[in-house]
């Protein structure tokens, strides 16, 4: 680990269908919110990190040029990072590295997406080459549906039980979102609404799947000296992890998913966490699909392999449970994809800084933020704490 680093400001736009503004104006809205939260001005920033989905999603190549003014990045060092769904976590880790290295004191990190302007599933298919994998990808839901099937078969989880646990995740999160002012989809769903929903890619039905959202998230990282001077309740970075798989889909196991397991190991080691269920107070797991959240509970050691359905149905990961997961409603309710993993970081920082409002987990001191992406290639994690 380099120098100590903290998050001292975070901003989000209202996420949803944002045809009311242009893309640069949407970016500006998130950036201004972060400056306001941190009581800083652009002059205080040493460098800017920005990212979105691949250019084929944006329709404009090299968006960091298009958004230079909105980002207040003119005349400053600037970096762009993109790893599909993990983009937001790659951004956060890039900003963290920059400050931890000692080469910058305050870095603005921004992720953004305007999914209603492009075509997310068509873009996702272009992540794969056209020789082999591209024709068979039934969008991201297809890949993660196959993962869900493997998970149930691996651990002999009856299909109805997996369905019920995934259904509970959907019902709970869509309700949780009512307490999150930035959330896109807020809905009172019954279990029947979820389990009888339209099949998209079996076993995934409509309410198992995240929405397309437009939105921006901005987070300001600062050195220990600056954080102590400028912020009453900084969220300290306690550990980070990032891991990638091979390209060839079908070469490795994604149920006991080494890439996710190793990501958690790296972050836990740095943060000194040995029993995540006891030591974490809240987790923002990257959950674009209900079943994916269940699988990550196991990969991150929140429960034994094959036991996520049981633990979920017991309420272990619900708002009042032992380790509340995604009290914001998570990706399942809000998915401006280039910003989505950064929203996990911002939400985790808000929790340990006591700024999460109606979805605050009382007394949260240690929070986990997770990102998942590259179709299903990357996992990233950041652990935040209320004390250094």
């Amino acid at each position, binding site marked *: 680990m380099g120098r100590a680093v903290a998050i001292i400001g975070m901003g989000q736009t209202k996420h949803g*269908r944002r045809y009311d503004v242009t893309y640069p104006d949407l970016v500006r809205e998130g950036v201004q919110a972060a400056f306001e939260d941190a009581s800083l001005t652009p002059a205080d920033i040493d460098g800017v990190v920005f990212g979105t989905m691949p250019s084929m999603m944006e329709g404009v190549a090299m968006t960091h040029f298009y958004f230079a003014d909105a980002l207040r990045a003119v005349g400053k060092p600037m970096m762009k990072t993109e790893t599909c769904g993990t983009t937001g976590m790659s951004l956060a880790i890039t900003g963290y590295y920059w400050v931890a290295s000692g080469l910058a004191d305050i870095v603005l990190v921004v992720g953004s997406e305007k999914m209603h302007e492009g075509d997310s599933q068509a873009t996702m298919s272009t992540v794969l080459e056209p020789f082999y994998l591209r024709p068979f990808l039934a*969008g991201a839901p297809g890949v993660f549906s*196959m*993962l869900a099937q493997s998970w149930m078969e691996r651990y002999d989880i009856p299909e109805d039980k997996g369905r019920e646990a995934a259904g509970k995740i959907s019902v709970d999160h869509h309700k949780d979102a009512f307490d999150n002012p930035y959330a896109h989809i807020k809905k009172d769903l019954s279990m029947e609404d979820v389990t009888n929903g339209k099949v*998209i890619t079996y076993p995934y039905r409509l309410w198992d799947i995240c929405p397309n959202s437009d939105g921006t998230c901005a987070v300001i990282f600062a050195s220990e000296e600056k954080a102590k001077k400028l912020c009453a309740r900084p969220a300290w970075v306690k550990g980070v992890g990032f891991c990638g798989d*091979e390209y060839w889909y*079908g070469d490795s196991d994604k149920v006991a998913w080494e890439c996710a397991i190793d990501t958690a190991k790296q972050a836990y080691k740095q943060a000194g966490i040995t029993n995540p269920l006891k030591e974490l107070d809240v987790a923002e797991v990257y959950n674009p699909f209900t079943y994916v959240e269940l699988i990550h509970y196991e990969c991150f050691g929140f429960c034994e392999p094959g036991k996520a359905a049981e633990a979920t149905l017991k309420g272990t990961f619900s708002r009042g449970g032992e380790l509340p997961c995604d009290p914001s409603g998570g990706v399942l309710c809000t998915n401006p994809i280039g910003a989505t993993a950064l929203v996990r970081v911002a939400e985790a920082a808000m929790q340990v800084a006591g700024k999460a409002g109606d979805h605050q987990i009382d007394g949260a001191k240690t929070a986990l933020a997770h990102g998942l992406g590259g179709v299903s290639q990357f996992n990233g994690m950041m652990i935040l704490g209320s004390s250094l």
Partner: protein
Amino acid sequence: MGKHFSTFRHDVWLPYKFAVGQVFKAFYDGLKEEKILGNQCQSCGKIFVPPRSFCPDCNVDMGDYTEVSQEGEIVTWTLAKEAFFGSPLDPPFITALIRLDGVSCDLLHLVGGFDLSDVTGVRQRIKKNRRVRAVWNDEKQGHLLDIKYFEPL
């Protein structure tokens, strides 16, 4: 949300010409003759389909091509019911990972040859470890879709 002013339709259409390389060329030529080719790593012994130019595990050049079995087992699957822009496949279709006999990795392809309109029927028919066999299209393009799908045995 706020007022929606208007949207501006703009399509980007760009042609690309990808180099296929000798390994995929050999694989595609095999498909034209209704053969599924793989190749084996001389270091770890794993057999890959499609064949690889180098072993992803050992990072060594791969050996000669070998024809592999056209039968195998379903590893995992999903029934896709919705289309998206640019997809060459019309739903419903089953995308599956298939482990061909004797091969060390899974092949992503289609399972079909029966009624896919009813989810319950598909669930009863398709399971992990279900044996399948390649069914070929009459017309060959030198592409993976020369295999029409893998049919349950």
